[in-house]
């Protein structure tokens, strides 16, 4: 008997079940609706409370100016690059698939050709998103994408800068991931950034 069969048969014996016994449906899903007004304001307040920076601009040109200002002359990679290249730069610039108003989070799916490491290895992360990407809360993402793994190997939810409190419960930012995070929200998109 393989370990697989042994574990499964032990589980069935423990539960007095037989192979192929029917399973009733699980309890109905509980997903909340968040407030849908003032999403930009909510998002800004939530991320700033975590020491993130938010800039709201009108056009793509203004977004470019905001990115340059946040970059402040530092080296960067935009969208994607090799692991070793990403490990060398100071800033990673990405987009995001969703942003969550109530927690100030960014949600990124790997199917959008965004690298997993670009928002992780450099000490600073800049995300440029359109206003329309902001939803009320994480539950909205699970409603819109009931199977997040269907087309992506990874969905990552990023809520503020990387942090730790492992030494004397003192908050320190930027332990393994970026300690600095900027989100630039484009209010009126005339063309993609």
């Amino acid at each position, binding site marked *: 008997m393989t370990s697989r069969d042994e574990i499964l048969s032990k589980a069935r014996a423990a*539960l007095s079940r037989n192979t192929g016994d029917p399973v009733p449906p699980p309890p109905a899903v509980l997903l909340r609706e968040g407030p849908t007004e003032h999403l930009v304001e909510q998002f800004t307040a939530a991320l700033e409370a975590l020491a993130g920076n938010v800039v709201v601009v009108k056009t793509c040109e203004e977004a470019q100016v905001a990115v340059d200002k946040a970059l402040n002359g530092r080296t960067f990679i935009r969208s994607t690059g090799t692991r070793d290249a990403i490990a060398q730069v100071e800033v990673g610039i990405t987009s995001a698939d969703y942003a969550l108003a109530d927690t100030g989070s960014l949600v990124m799916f790997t199917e959008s050709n965004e690298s997993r490491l670009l928002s992780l290895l450099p000490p600073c992360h800049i995300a440029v998103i359109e206003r329309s990407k902001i939803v009320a809360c994480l539950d909205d993402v699970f409603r819109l994408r009931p199977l997040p793994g269907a087309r992506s*190997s990874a969905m990552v*939810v990023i809520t503020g800068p*990387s942090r730790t409190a*492992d030494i004397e419960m003192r908050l320190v930012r930027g332990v393994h991931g970026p300690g600095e995070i900027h989100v630039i929200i484009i209010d009126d998109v005339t063309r993609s950034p």
Partner: protein
Amino acid sequence: MKTPDVTAALGDKKLQLAIYSATARLGERRRETITSDHEELRQYAHDIKKHTLDHLDFYLEQLERNVEARGGKVIWAKDGAEACAFIQNLARKRGVKVIVKSKSMTTEEIHLNEHLEEVGIEAVETDLGEYILQLGGEKPFHIIAPALHKTKEDVSDIFEKHLHSKRETSPEGLTKIARVALREKFLEAGMGITGANFLVADSGAIVLVENEGNARLSSSAPKIHVAVSGIEKVIPRAQDLGVFLKLLARSATGQPLSVYTSFLAGAKREGEPDGPEEFYLVLLDNGRTRLLADESKRQSLYCIRCGACLNHCPVYRKIGGYNYPWVYSGPIGKILTPQFMGIEHDPWLPFASSLCGACGEVCPVKIEIPRILLELRSDKVANDPDRAELWSFKVWAWVMRHPKFYARLAPLALSAAPPVGPVKKWLSQRDLPVPPAKSFRDLWKERSK
């Protein structure tokens, strides 16, 4: 019953302050973040866990199918030895010399690091707290805050000794030293090992919840990602995470959401820029199917390892994490250890509780820890009755049924209880109340006159 000697922990003022302030802070933050619908969320989480564990075979098979449909591989391990052997062999076959690990109580449970060291593989803990403890040769003190008993000076000593760094006693500076040292390991490692906070059956995915980014790095930077998880971590649907992620972040650290939540479904797919090339999920039994068979205690397996019961436990908050016999400490450890190891292993454990009920009240998945503690006490008595105790209760019951005897014996017993034998032992941990000058019976007599 041999109980651990906790006098050292109780007498250590620095340690007492560290435990007290850390757990108080975590508790406060939890209270600040829980919402008015908290009870409804807890009940939902409890119901989902109950449903999944009551049909565990079904959900494990569904999980396996979906992991393999996404190109991942599922390895079933009856015990720690099988899990460790699989990882050792895989590492050897792929020529892996360095492994980065993110915090996982399950790998602590099976002593994975020791097994990897034996075959000459360097396994580096990358959670800051775990890294400090690994360098210092210690074990996690708390499920969520593993190094809460270490001061910044202690950490500096450890870094100076093992990393040859300069004296640095600011948490910021110490964190930077660790970041630089560990970054090298992340880029050098041939394999990353993580645990899993949840296994999602309908998606064939694992979920990792963290604040530092080391779990993201461990699961994304090396070519091979191995996740090790107990079979009880499975939940039916990705949509159930809406509730579980809120409960976990609020109960563990008092955050609305943890900094990073990774939902990982297999290895890197075609067209994706990065991610591991191979993904393995090790499903560990190691006694869990035995716990499953006990219907009234089955809910011990609902635990999502948030640590809230530790932070609210008057016993944990005095004796700390090192006076429990197994990796799981605090109230949850008190109910898991006797069930995994057998009640005869540490029969005193379920008795080391005031039964105040705080653990059950804060548990985000509503495990009735106090009730299970009582059941384990009764298991202990059934398994190994204490004659002296049985007789004393018999005598006590007889005296209580005979008021005349009681009236004469009670004042005598209180004033002159001889501190010898079992009484002495009993009194070594407890104070008897000072008998009042006049007993209730005396007062009653005076009133009735």
